[in-house]
């Protein structure tokens, strides 16, 4: 069970906790003689008082641009003999032609796996793994990236391999074919897990089957992608004037700058205009939908509608509302899980995006026969925060939770640097995280209710159930008078002969 913290990039399926590891701020070890610790008496938590938290320290960093437009961020950190870096490119799977869905993802994978002009894929793998280093690339929906990680003693070598991957990829034809086989295998397996089905089909209902934010890779779209397409998409995507490079770790800045200048200074941006048009998003469907899976004893439920962006004024109050609904002591967890025992997983949150409308999404899983009560419970909680003000106590708890844990946004330099780069990429102010903090401090009960009333609309809801139709008793038709339930066919389209 997960709920999103306010700053994490909203993920489609926020399922795995991720260990972001890295390094440090400034050491404040007290040296020398220390007074003996004061005697302590065990106390109940209500009797405790706490000292002030020492101030958050933002490590120094440098931002500069090369003549070719490449933006560089450097942040030193010498706690461990490691260096990590990432290049962010203005591109994305959402920018490719729908007939060639998957082109962006495939190019992102082939960039690294296809080897370089100097090294075959195998030789590159060996060179990295012998040094316990990595170079990885990928193109997601809204962004492209290439990253490396190395022991600092191997920095020069690994950075050289990294820049070769970025600038001189070979896109070896046999590696492209290999990747296509992998993608085909992935298509064949996409209905093996009910959670995957629910998530995928929910996005299609919200954004539309053909929307860049929901469409899926098919055998046909894969077959339509040629090596020339990959190379052409690479040329328009991976270029210095559309690249932000961030490096964190145990490096010498003068040496690092020389390495960067050497590797990327003579790289000229192509004449072709960059890919910048962000596709818009609109809600495609509303109503109740069912994917019948007779083997299941549980229903996987998704409820929601089109949402908004982080830059909009309602984002802050709705982020606070997320805390009221979710988490320990959140309304959904308390009511649907702990009190009614209806689910192991239940959630509803406003999942905003940086540059296009995200989704307000709720749901969870419940046994087949409690599907309708579960949906009604979640809908009731959604309606409640629109119709009635939350309590002052709930507001205080939600704000405290965000503000008291604010320090966890500054655990290590790589976390801080990747946030700065994300803000620059999406055109947000570099202090957006602090603006958010101030916004939360100022949020009121009435602002939350007003935002909920504006943004949460029961009439727009998509309700999707992946479950065993015969066992869902009472049936979904009982959710409302004259309810029609639309069946969704998830069979996988065969490749063209």
């Amino acid at each position, binding site marked *: 069970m997960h709920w999103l913290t306010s700053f994490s990039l909203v993920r489609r399926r926020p399922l795995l906790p991720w260990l972001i590891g890295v390094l440090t701020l400034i050491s404040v070890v007290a040296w020398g003689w220390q007074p003996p*610790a004061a005697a302590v008496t065990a106390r109940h938590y209500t009797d405790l008082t706490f000292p002030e938290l020492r101030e958050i320290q933002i490590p120094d960093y440098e931002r500069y641009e090369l003549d070719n437009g490449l933006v560089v961020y450097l942040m030193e950190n010498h706690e461990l003999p490691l260096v990590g870096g990432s290049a962010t490119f203005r591109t994305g799977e959402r920018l490719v032609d729908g007939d060639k869905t998957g082109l962006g993802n495939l190019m992102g994978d082939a960039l690294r796996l296809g080897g370089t002009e100097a090294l075959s894929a195998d030789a590159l793998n060996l060179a990295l793994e012998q040094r316990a280093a990595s170079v990885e690339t990928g193109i997601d929906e809204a962004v492209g990236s290439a990253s490396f990680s190395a022991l*600092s003693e191997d920095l020069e070598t690994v950075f050289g391999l990294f820049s070769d991957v970025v600038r001189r990829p070979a896109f070896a034809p046999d590696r492209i074919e290999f990747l296509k086989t992998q*993608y085909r295998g992935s298509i064949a*397996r996409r209905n093996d897990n009910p959670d995957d089905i629910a998530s995928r089909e929910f996005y299609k209902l919200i954004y539309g089957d053909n929307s860049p934010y929901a469409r899926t890779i098919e055998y046909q779209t894969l077959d339509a992608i040629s090596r020339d397409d990959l190379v052409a998409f690479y040329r328009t995507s991976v270029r210095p004037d559309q690249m932000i490079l961030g490096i964190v770790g145990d490096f010498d800045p003068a040496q690092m700058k020389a390495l960067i200048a050497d590797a990327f200074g003579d790289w000229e941006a192509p004449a072709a205009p960059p890919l910048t048009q962000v596709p818009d998003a609109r809600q495609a469907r509303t109503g109740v939908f069912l994917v019948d899976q007779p083997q299941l004893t549980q229903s996987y439920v998704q409820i929601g509608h089109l949402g908004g962006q982080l830059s909009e004024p309602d984002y802050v109050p709705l982020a606070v509302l997320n805390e009221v609904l979710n988490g*320990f002591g959140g309304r959904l967890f308390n009511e649907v899980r702990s009190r009614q025992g209806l689910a192991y997983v239940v959630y509803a949150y406003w999942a905003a995006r940086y540059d296009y409308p995200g989704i307000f999404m709720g749901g969870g899983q419940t046994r087949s026969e409690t599907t309708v009560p579960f949906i009604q419970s979640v809908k009731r909680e959604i309606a409640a925060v629109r119709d009635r003000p939350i309590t002052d106590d709930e507001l205080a708890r939600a704000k*405290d939770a965000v503000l008291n844990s604010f320090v966890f946004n*500054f655990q290590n330099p790589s976390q801080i640097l990747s946030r700065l780069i994300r803000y620059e990429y999406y055109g947000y102010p570099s202090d957006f995280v602090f603006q958010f903090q101030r916004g939360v401090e100022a949020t009121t009960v009435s602002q939350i209710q007003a935002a909920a009333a504006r943004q949460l609309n029961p009439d727009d809801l998509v309700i999707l159930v992946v479950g065993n139709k015969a066992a869902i008793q009472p049936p979904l038709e009982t959710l409302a008078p004259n309810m029609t339930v639309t069946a969704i066919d998830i069979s996988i389209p065969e490749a063209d002969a």
Partner: protein
Amino acid sequence: MFGFSWFSTPFHALPKALRRSLHRCLVLFLIGVVALTTAPPAAWARSTTPGSSVQPYLDRVAKAVTEFTLANGMKFIVLERHQAPVVSFMLYANVGAVNEEEGKTGVAHYLEHLAFKGTERIGTRDFAAEQQVLAEMDDVFAQVLAAEAAGNTAQAEALRSRLETLRQQAAEYVEQNKYGQIVEQAGGVGLNATTGADATRYFYSLPSNKVELWMSLESERFLEPVFREFYEEKDVILEERRMRVDNSPIGKLMEVFLEKAFEQHPYRRPIIGYEADLYTATRDDIQAFFDAYYGPNNLIGVVVGDVNPREIRAMVEAYFGRFEARSLPAEVTIAEPRQTAPREFTLALPSQPWYLEGYHRPSITDPDHVVYGMIEGILVNGRTSRLYKDLVEDRQVALDVGSINGFPGDKYPNMLLLYGLPAPNVEPDAIGTLMQDHLGRLSREPVSQEELDRVKTQARAGLLRRLDSNSGMAALLAEYEAKTGSWRNVFAELAAIDAVTAEDVQRVARATFQPNNRTVGKLVPAES
């Protein structure tokens, strides 16, 4: 409580969607068996090998660790790290599903859920009154079970209804999820717990000015726990079982695999428990399990972050010193008989195929433990590993391959599990044949120096990267303390890895990869 745990599979080429789904399948099944795949990271000694600059950093970290044991037997480990004003905590209970009695499976995990329900003072509006209703409910539930066992449906129905009335009455006293709410409101993050075959872990992180809050809450939690909302939570756990096992083909495959691979040892049973056992579990069962296994000498506390060890010790004495010493619980003594013939089974389920094969291996305390980690590295870690390179990249018969070393735990003799996802139109057996060719080769021919060096370097760098994470280090120190007798083995193991030779790998491979030591599990698509 939510039971997800970090789980690293080798960094392969698998498309993200599939990679994610595969991770999830395995992770969901293995409720919180931490540190599964990667060989426990290792320490280093030599100065000529690549990456030798790492050693001083590891030494420095080891020096920043302090440890002490309270008079009641509770052990604490503290690692100072002042990079940011935050602290990660772990309370490691040296008890897991392996300690459960036959017929009472799932009790360890059930207890872990109930450990979030509060204490005599947290989570209740009136404990004295609440306690009476709870006792009454337990009586009624005992009668429900008796009526059901006697086949008296009408009586069982009436008692169920009585239980429901009492449940609503009890709910009036409950301040729901108060414990977690206190933590979250104070700025705590990552509050969760996992139950594995060997251990139960409770953890979260706080801003470093609130260390005493953890001391107060965590000590009270196990000093005077109240297992309230027991019957609601039973439904939640049954949902969790449906999600992880009944509705997950890979979850079912793993459950059956353990039942086949082990005949006697409790590792054969599912961590989450069998449905029938969960259904009949009582609050007394939970209490008895708690009394037996949550004594202070069976618990380890770990604190990693921006703290002063002297202050930690003073607080620990005051708060955890309140626990009364208890006798140590008995160790599991059931030994798995030596396997004498190959085992194999096939499940037909609505899913694309999977192939698993596992071999019995000794526990984490065996001198050859590190060799198994190296074998795993040579076979499946990274794109240059043998099975990945051959099966996935060159022959393209598998979409991915992977392993779990120490399955389902590693405190006792366990399994080295290898798995493969057949590519479209490939039979699972084709994966098995190739896997066994590679295992045979590992038994016949010494591995190259290059491969050995690669795995050694990766192990060392792996530990280094882990030092970045307060919570990751808390988990690692606790695990080694509990399973090997000292947290120092996190670092000492480096020397052991450094000393592994090609002959060691061949010797261990030859002893392990015998047909008579093998269990094969296949998942094939059911015609629907």
